């Protein structure tokens, strides 16, 4: 019987359903005889589930405003004031 080390390289692909059929069959055969690798598969799955449960962070509003003004400044340096800017031309209020 092959050592578990030989299966571990493909466990991630197996767990994600991306392994070739022949590899899947080999792994499944090994899993029948190896409780350790079964626990490994189970906990590898749970690891990703736990990661996905985390809330998706968004850029806070004040940082968004900071980013916006930094990018505006940079844009003006690069391209100058464009015709579609909100800045009124001279002489207007």
């Amino acid at each position, binding site marked *: 019987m092959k050592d578990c080390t030989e299966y571990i390289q493909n466990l991630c692909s197996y767990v994600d359903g991306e392994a070739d059929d022949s590899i899947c069959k080999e792994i499944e055969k090994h899993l029948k005889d190896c409780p350790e690798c079964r626990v490994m598969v*189970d906990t590898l799955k749970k690891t990703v589930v736990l990661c*996905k*449960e985390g809330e998706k*962070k968004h850029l806070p509003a004040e940082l968004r405003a900071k980013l916006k003004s930094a*990018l505006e400044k940079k844009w003006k340096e690069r391209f100058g004031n464009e015709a579609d800017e909100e800045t009124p031309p001279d002489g207007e209020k």
Partner: protein
Amino acid sequence: MLAGSQLRVDIRFAKRVLIAYNHPMNEKELVIHARGGDRDAFNELISNYIDKIYRLGFKVSGNEEDAQDILQETFLKAIDKIESFRSEASFGTWLYSIAMNVMRGCFAQRKKMALKPIEDYAPDHSDTGSSGLFKWNDPHEMFENSQIQGIIDDFIAEMPEENSTPFILRYIEEMPVKEIAGVMGLSVSAVKSRILRARLALREHISSKMEEKMP
């Protein structure tokens, strides 16, 4: 009568409406407009990636200041290099690859823990039999979700970013492996093995935290 500046603002607004509803510009068109100095087109191009790149920076660094720096630096570089974007790649892939370079620079000085080689995570049957893997039933019975997320985030931030980045893109942003390879300038198999190493290390870390918690 409208004042000149008022009219200008209205034209600008009308243009946005036009872009949004009547004629949604595709990515290629937006890039052409952005290159010509159209800031609205650029803003449109980056709008989908602000939160994504912020999250990536936050996970990899473990703190908000670094995440903000990475995000800003990425977009400033994108403005600088907008002419060098060739549309063979998607704009997102191009943007992420800039973020990769920014992060590489950011973490070059920092010492991160080294991960074990993949084989070392395999179950070991050779010794006394005390090496049994610990089976987690429901992790939520042992920890509150916020505690689990804290354990995960702290550990990911300690990992070398060459492992954490592809792991985050794969499982948190759900990016296909092939695209991650494009973004990181690596082969698919190299990406897969980096992700595997990160996943095995994280699995082991969570497991040890669970075991500690056992009565």
